[in-house]
């Protein structure tokens, strides 16, 4: 009977599928990594892959697995659950400060990490500062041929689609500076005032988005003005977006290499960090994306013209401020809930 044949066929299919299931287990460990590095994805991580990950594998034979999603919360959750998969993590100053505060990191082994070119202020017990970046104002040249100022970004009379960063840090600083707060008086941050400033243009915001989202929105023409990391905005322009940016009232910050407490490949992690902070690698990253190397020897390897697009270039630095990670270390716990409530209203 036909139906009997069909039953047998179905049974055979079930058995086949079941055997696939069991054989699946053998494939599970195919991706065993020798060192795992967590970063931010997108254009920045592509640059890191070219400047650090691939050359490291070539030089040592150690496989580098790049992953995304770095952030204070993820590191905290990972270390507290004890299920640690990340070895090296790239962290912003405020994330770094809070990770250190909560004891989520292990000390950098400075007998392995040799980077004399990196100033002492960037060689902390739990992390090595490796690049500087700036949160800058950018605009569409089609919409604003004459450019805009930070004050105009927060002026509701200037019509346009805007995007801001989903994190409270940088954005609160940007808003206060645009509202006329002097750099010297910026900290401690007047959060109430900042939220009022942002509230003025909230109905013209398409939303609060992450760095790589901002780049995508710019490239797709979804927004007319944005605050975003200088490297990604530069990358969007390189990819064809008719945009410009300025260093006025920018907020610059340091990106750190840290190693999670209980990292499965801690020794390799230190070796990787040592490789990544060497002058040649640091210079290569800057060639890929204009973030400033912390290693002073790397600057010597770079075309002097490149230096002009870095946050550390004196003329750029003079226009903006440096993020105070100590303030965020002390205040993130209280500001974060307020910020979260603010942005969803």
């Amino acid at each position, binding site marked *: 009977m*036909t139906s009997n044949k069909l039953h047998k066929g179905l049974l055979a299919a079930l058995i086949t599928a079941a055997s696939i299931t069991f054989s699946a287990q053998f494939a599970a460990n195919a991706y065993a990594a020798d060192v795992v590095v967590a970063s931010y994805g997108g254009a920045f991580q592509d640059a890191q892959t070219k400047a650090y990950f691939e050359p490291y594998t070539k030089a040592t034979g150690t496989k580098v697995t790049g992953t995304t999603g770095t952030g204070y919360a993820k590191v905290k959750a990972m270390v507290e659950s004890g299920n640690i998969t990340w070895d090296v993590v790239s962290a912003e100053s405020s994330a770094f400060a809070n990770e250190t505060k909560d004891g989520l990191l292990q000390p950098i082994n400075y007998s392995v990490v040799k980077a004399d070119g990196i100033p002492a202020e960037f060689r902390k017990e739990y992390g090595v500062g490796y690049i500087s970046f700036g949160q800058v104002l950018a605009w569409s040249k089609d919409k604003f041929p004459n450019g805009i100022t930070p004050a105009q970004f927060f002026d509701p009379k200037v019509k346009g689609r805007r995007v801001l960063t989903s994190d409270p840090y940088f954005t609160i600083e940007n808003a206060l500076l645009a509202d006329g707060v002097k750099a010297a008086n910026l900290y401690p941050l007047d959060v109430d005032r900042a939220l009022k400033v942002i509230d003025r243009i909230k109905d013209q915001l398409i939303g609060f988005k992450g760095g*790589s989202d901002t780049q995508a929105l710019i490239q797709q*023409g979804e927004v007319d003005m944005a605050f975003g990391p200088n490297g990604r905005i530069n990358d969007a322009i390189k990819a064809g977006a008719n945009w410009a940016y300025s260093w006025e009232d920018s907020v610059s910050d340091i990106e750190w290499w840290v190693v999670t407490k209980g990292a499965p490949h801690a020794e390799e992690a230190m070796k990787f960090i040592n490789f990544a902070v060497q002058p040649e690698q640091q210079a290569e990253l800057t060639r890929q994306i204009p973030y400033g190397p912390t290693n002073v020897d790397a600057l010597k390897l770079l075309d002097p013209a490149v230096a002009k697009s870095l946050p550390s270039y004196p003329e750029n630095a003079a226009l903006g401020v440096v993020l105070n990670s100590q303030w965020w270390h002390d205040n993130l716990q209280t500001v974060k809930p307020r910020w979260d409530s603010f942005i969803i*209203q």
Partner: protein
Amino acid sequence: MRRNRLIEWQRLLLLAPVFLLLLFAFALPLFAIVPEAFGGDAVGRFLLIFQSVVYRTVIWTTVRISLEATALTLIVSFPLAWLLSRATGAKALLLGLLVLVPFLTSVLVRTFAWLAILGQRGLVNATLLTLGLISEPLPLLFSEPAVVLALVHASIPMMVFALVTVLRRIDGRILLAAHTLGAKPVRAWFGIVVPLAIRGIQSGVIIIFLFTMASFIAPAFLGNQRQQMLAQMIQAQIETGADWRFAAALGVTLSVTATIVVLALSSVARYFSRWQNPGLSPTTAPQQLVQQADREILRTSVALPRSHFHLPALRRLSARWVEPAYLAVISIFILLPLIVLFPVSFSSADVLIFPPPGYSVRWFEKILGSPEWVSAALTSLRIGAAACVLCLATAILTVLGFGRHFRFQGAAEAIVLAPLSVPAVVFALGAYLAFARVGLVDTETGIVVAHTVLIFPVVYLVVSATYSSIDPWLSLASASLGANPWRIFRTVTFPLLLPGLAVGALLAMLLSFDESVASIFLSDLSVKTLPRKLWEGIRFNTSPESAAVSAMLLGVTCLVVIVGMVVVLGRRKNALLTLQSAPEALP
């Protein structure tokens, strides 16, 4: 007495797998959350949620968007499901494909495709600008209609699947009979078809409502902070807040809200099914049925059809055009995000822009040359196959275990369907916490188990709806002819269940393929499923690479579906033949 007890034991054995699965893979993981949500300063936590205008707004937004999306999905899908259930041959194949094909595309990609349709430089704005209808691009993205549109689009296939299994059982001549008795179309539909289809409508509405309530991808990509939904907040809390306890409390809030709304929806469904419930009818003897039937329809004096004196020609013409017009509109709506994928995946641009500035195959070269994409596809295939087998086996055993009479049917079904009432985000969080303790995080087994738990209730609903529409007298007849339970199952129940099982298997495979929440939580570095890879791709790189991946998948899976449908259609013909020749085949 003794025989009864024996049957109970058999039932328990049949039900053992599902309850073991639910206990270890569902209840225990959730149990890992509950102490989190209610541990420590629980009162303060829940007060914070319910006293804060913000969270109340988000809860209301979530319910509102979910209800809007569910209602729209039902309205939009019901005619399609009806037409599909009536269709035969090529039309059935085409309509089936219309439903199946969008299902094969990841929700992530379909959401992504809306960016290329609704964006400032997207399809809609480009068309309107070219036609000169607008001078400035319309702000379509980052609004509530955009989110609802994407949710409806994502929900249509599931709704049609849920409806069609039940609608197919309705004898179309019943409408003819109603018409003969003088019922107007509206009365015939709402008095007959809707109550007969109520099991399907109910399961469809519940599935869609809970799916939309737990979704965070559409509001995240297409909405702004004003369309923020609860699931998004949970995901944000987990990813950036690290306040696991608060995330757990939000999860509890979401589940409770969902349960309340689902109960309300169920009572509405009960109202509609007051005189006919295909789910319960087999439990009562035919005589009882007659007594239970609502004779309201018979008591009402039948109005004679009025003569059509107002524009009969126009009416007839419009009636003739309704179906093709509806089919055209719904086809465009369903297929547009998929069709857009093709030009976009051949785009030479780095982002999704419509129309593409130029064409190239570089994205296809990139993914085919990438071992990561290939291995992610294989991983998803393995996980999907395993989850599908586990779901089907468990669903068959559960349906048989419940049988037709089961003293605690209501409670037992509620337990079995419990995973549906827990948002995937919350379950994923619980699974992460619990699986981490036994080393199942970042393994294929862990994801298979999580997928089985998440997908099993959907498969069960479909299989049980099919089972409840099987005439119980068939089993009794074969038993009285001397067949043992196994033989009854093999020769009567199982063949009749097959359509439901096939639909269930398709659902399980596709849902597992589509499932991104549990995959994102439970996979990390060793195991990367296709949705996770797509999620990473879309989140961190707005390249047409993801569109190219799904365009390729679309091609391959279309082929599989066509082959599958040919087999199913061929089988139906065979089944008819077998039935006709059955008397001869019997010894």
